[in-house]
Each structure stands twice: as structure tokens, then as C-alpha cells.
């Protein structure tokens, strides 16, 4: 059976599944906000940006807590044509789940971290929030199941993945909002602050066995998590750009970042309710780890002016005068991204569909508690089959008018 035919058949199933969902679309008016979240209003224009902070802050969402949060906006404001200099990925309004989810509040899990019992704050920058989605994804079922079973899912995900600063070198806590609905009744909407890999260290992007201490994480009490943050370092740059064995520099191979998260929503008794482990990949970060550089940050665009690299590969067509790392003409601004969806597991056959957890996705209870986040899960159990998603977004990049690092 062709991929297209399978998609057409299971899309009907998703339509039925989502239309029978227990959630009604509710997009409350942001003017009803009782205050601003910490994440709101933190962006201000740089010298290359033509939009004002006021225009930027018009793009806001009302969080479930009644606070005003920043949310997705295009790289340029359609009303004025001004540019923000950064982008947040794919417009979520095209997702089949947008009617259920609405505008995604950026920084919601960060906002409630301390109130939920964690001993320190963790706030992230604005530009790192990236949205990706796919409708009617044909899933695969492991161990031969794909031959017999046809399941499709709609996915809408927001990951905070800043690839322009040293933040992720040592800091492993990053916010993810993950919404999935599938034709087999697998479904969940989970927002957490996910510890990715070991706090205070990164894994070399070109050699996953090489763990590199990168300093004290922020916050210092960041717990270790599953997965890893594979980030390029100076050795990767040396091996694949500056001194490649065949003389041909390969930027994509050297610079590719892969944030391989492993999120598990758990009850207070530590029973897993749902889990997912997508890999968020960026081909063109504007940084790499360099212990010998100022702030431990190396800039890929600087490599384009090294003899033997100039004009090669991603440096082709760049002006001969040195570009700064945040120049809009730099090809290294973190706009080429894709997601390996991977596993989507749910074990909630007993229900209920609404759980409340802390910002880390733990301590799940059926009643809200201070600092808790409302999580939605379908009443379903798919543990007998390994529901895997495809790679999405590989054929897209999110460059736009005025976009530049930091992005």
C-alpha cells in the first residue's frame, strides 16, 4: 500500500478521533490577563530589527493561569512590515490541533517551576521557542506492526531550543509543549520543563561518546534527565571543517545539533502515564562550544574567513568582508530544523484524562496543587505496540525577512 493511500485512509480516522475529543476549543481573550508572565516582554529590538517591542508584545496568549505570555508570531509583522529578527518556526494555525490547543504560551512551565516545589527559577530567552507541526503523519509500529496496522497522528510541538548562546552548553532544562492526537486514540497534551541529558555537560555532536564538562548549570540544582544534548565543539569543527581528511569542509556534518529529549509524565507514585522522546535537530546553529573562546562560544561564520574554507560549502557566496555572527546575511542562524518524532507512549487506560503535575512532569495527581500544570491525556493504553513517528520538517527552513542570529 502506498504511503499516500495509507495517509488518506487514516486521515479519516484522525478526523473522527479529534472531532470526538473531550476538549472544546477555548481561546480566551488575552485582554483578560491578570498580569504578565516572566517570559512576557523580555524581547527588545536590536540594531538590525525594525519592529518595536510594543508591536512584538501584541503577539500574546492567555495562559491557563490567567497570565499573559508571548506566543508565536511571524518573522515580520504583516500589519507594518517591520521585522523582528527572529522566528518561532512553523505557523501553528495550520495545525489540525490548533482548534484544540490554541496559541501556545511560551514559558508556561518555566513560570510555574518554583511554585511547584522546585528550589530555583529557570527562565529562558524568547527567541529560542520553536514551533513545529505535522498533520496526518503516518506512524510506524515496531516489530512488523506497520504491515498490519495503519495509524496516523497530528502533532503540534513547541520546543525551546536556543542555538545561539552558551545557555545549552551547561543548562539542560528546556521547555517543551507537546500535543499529539492519533487515529488509534493515542493522544496527549503535555507541557513540561524537560531536563535533557546531564546538567553541566554537553555531548560532542560529532562523537556522542565524548562528554564535555561545560560549567555549572543554571539553576545549579538542575536534575539530570534522559536523552542528550549533542552540540558541536571545536574538535568537531577542526575535524570536519578546518582539517577534513579529503580537504572538503562540511558545515552541516560538523555543526548539526541534536537535542534528544526523553519526557515521561509520572504520577506521584512514579508510575509513567505518557512518554515521548523526539529529537530536535538544527543544522545551522550560530554557535559551537569552544573552551578557548570568549564565553566558550565559537561562531561558525568566522570559519568562513579561514583560508581553505572561504567560499566553500555553506560559505559560498558570502561577502569578502567579515560578517558578524548576528549579521542577517550569515547562513548560520538556526533556521534549518527538523524533528524526529520517535516514540509516543501512553498508559492511561484507567483515566482520568486530566492530570496535574509539577513543571518537570512529575508528582502527577488528579487534583490541582500549587504550581501544578494541567496535562491532558486520552484514556488509552498503547504499550503493546511501539508507536513511532517520522521525521518532520526536513524539507523546510524558517528563514524570513530580517531573520538573524540570535534566533
Amino acid at each position, binding site marked *: 500500500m502506498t504511503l499516500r493511500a495509507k495517509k488518506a485512509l487514516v486521515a479519516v480516522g484522525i478526523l473522527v478521533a479529534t472531532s470526538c475529543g473531550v476538549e472544546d476549543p477555548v481561546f480566551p481573550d488575552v485582554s483578560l490577563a491578570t498580569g504578565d508572565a516572566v517570559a512576557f516582554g523580555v524581547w527588545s529590538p536590536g540594531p538590525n530589527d525594525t519592529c518595536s517591542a510594543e508591536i512584538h508584545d501584541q503577539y500574546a496568549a492567555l495562559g491557563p493561569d490567567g497570565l499573559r505570555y508571548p506566543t508565536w508570531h511571524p518573522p515580520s509583522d504583516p500589519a507594518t512590515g517591520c521585522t523582528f529578527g527572529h522566528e518561532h518556526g512553523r505557523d501553528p494555525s495550520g495545525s489540525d490541533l490548533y482548534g484544540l490547543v490554541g496559541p501556545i504560551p511560551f514559558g508556561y512551565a518555566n513560570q510555574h517551576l518554583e511554585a511547584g516545589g522546585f528550589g530555583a527559577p529557570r527562565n529562558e530567552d524568547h527567541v529560542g521557542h520553536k514551533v513545529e507541526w505535522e498533520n496526518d503523519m503516518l506512524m510506524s509500529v515496531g516489530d*512488523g506492526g506497520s504491515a498490519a496496522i495503519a495509524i496516523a497522528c497530528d502533532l503540534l510541538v513547541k520546543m525551546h531550543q536556543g542555538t545561539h548562546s552558551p545557555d545549552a552548553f551547561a543548562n539542560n532544562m528546556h521547555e517543551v509543549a507537546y500535543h499529539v492526537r492519533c487515529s488509534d486514540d493515542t493522544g496527549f497534551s503535555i507541557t513540561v520543563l524537560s531536563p535533557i541529558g546531564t546538567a553541566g555537560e554537553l555531548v560532542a555532536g560529532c562523537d556522542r561518546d565524548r562528554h564535555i564538562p561545560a560549567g555549572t548549570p543554571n539553576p545549579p540544582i538542575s536534575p539530570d534527565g534522559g536523552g542528550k544534548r549533542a552540540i558541536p565543539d571545536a574538535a568537531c569543527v577542526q575535524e570536519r571543517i578546518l582539517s577534513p581528511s579529503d580537504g572538503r569542509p562540511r558545515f552541516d556534518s560538523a555543526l548539526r545539533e541534536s537535542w534528544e529529549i526523553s519526557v515521561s509524565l509520572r504520577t506521584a507514585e512514579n508510575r509513567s502515564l505518557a512518554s515521548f522522546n523526539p529529537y530536535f535537530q538544527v543544522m545551522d546553529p550560530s554557535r559551537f562550544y569552544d573552551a578557548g573562546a570568549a564565553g566558550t562560544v565559537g561562531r561558525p561564520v568566522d570559519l568562513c574567513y579561514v583560508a581553505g574554507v572561504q567560499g566553500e560549502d555553506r560559505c559560498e557566496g558570502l561577502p569578502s568582508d567579515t560578517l558578524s555572527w548576528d549579521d542577517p546575511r550569515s547562513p548560520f542562524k538556526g533556521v534549518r530544523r527538523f524533528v524526529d518524532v520517535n516514540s509516543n507512549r501512553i498508559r492511561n487506560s484507567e483515566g482520568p484524562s486530566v492530570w496535574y503535575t509539577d513543571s518537570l512532569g512529575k508528582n502527577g495527581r488528579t487534583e490541582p496543587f500549587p504550581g501544578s500544570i494541567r496535562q491532558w491525556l486520552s484514556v488509552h493504553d498503547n504499550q503493546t505496540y511501539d508507536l513511532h513517528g517520522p521525521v518532520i520538517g526536513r524539507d523546510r527552513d524558517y528563514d524570513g525577512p530580517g531573520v538573524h542570529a540570535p534566533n
Partner: protein
Amino acid sequence: MKPIHAHIALILALLSVPGVSSAQAPAGGSSGGLWWEVSAAAGGMRLSCLLCDPTRELGPTASAAFGTYAGPSVRIGLEAGGWANDDEDVREKVYRAGLVGQLHPRPGSGLHLIGGLGWSGYRAELFSYDALRLTLGAGWDLPLIGNWVAGNRVLLDASSFASLKNDAGTVATSVGLSVLTFGVYVRKQ
């Protein structure tokens, strides 16, 4: 499905078109005598359940049967066979075994009705399905030489109310399996 399997299945289906034969053949047996036959066919397999891929997958089948005559127009026996298809990287297989009966409603006519009862098993790597099977069909005998007969037939294997499982447990319940085949056979009777 790999193209080679599609081609084999198509050829077998064309060979089995009833219109290619018009001659009649006698049932040819006598009570207590033995018969055996082999057949090849094109088969369309489909699993039916909430999660199942609803497409009928095409693949070749083969089967063999032997038995005796319960009367001049009634053959009974045992049969076994299988169906296969490559769905991308996964080989799907359906095995079948059980009792078969063939009845010539008009003595001397090649037309015969087929009924069967047995087991069908679906396998695709770690996924499996086992169920009681009913078979219904019809065939048309063409005399060859001596006690040899060839012919074409259409069969429907149907199973239901079983579970699709893997090593982790039950994946789907109330799963149906059907295999519709068009094929040819040779019988020594």
C-alpha cells in the same frame, strides 16, 4: 508489495478466469478412492479491526490437499497452504490448515462447491493472529488425461473474533482476517 509478487499474483488471477474453460468433467471418483491436488493462486488478504490497515494486500498463495471420496460426488480431505506478501521491509504470511470438502452438485459436471473449516494464522515479524477459519468457494474441473483434472477456482477464507498480538501482548481485539483467492489447481483423482 514487491513488483515480482504483484506480477505472480496477477498471472495466477488471469489463469483462473472462469471464462477460459467451458468443458465439463466428471467428478471421476469412487467412494473410498483417494485424491490429491495442488493449487496456486493470487490472493488478496485483509485484516479488519479498528487499528488495522484496511487495504487488501495482494500476494501469491499455494496449497495442497489430499483425501478420499465420501461418495461419487463428494470429496473430503485435509489441506494446508499459505499466502505471502512483502509490505516494504516486512514479510506478511498467512498459514492455513484444516478440513476441506468438495461437492459436485450435478454429477458429471465440472462445477463443484468447496467448503472448509480449519485454522488460519497471520504472521508479520513479532505480530501474530490465530483464528478459526471458514472457507467457501467454487471450482470448475477440466479433464486432462486419465484421472488427472485441472481447473480454476475462487475461494474465500474468513476468520474473525480473534486478537492480533505481539510479544508485548494483545494489540487489537475482534480482528477479522479474510483471504480471497483466484487460482488454478491440478488434481489426481
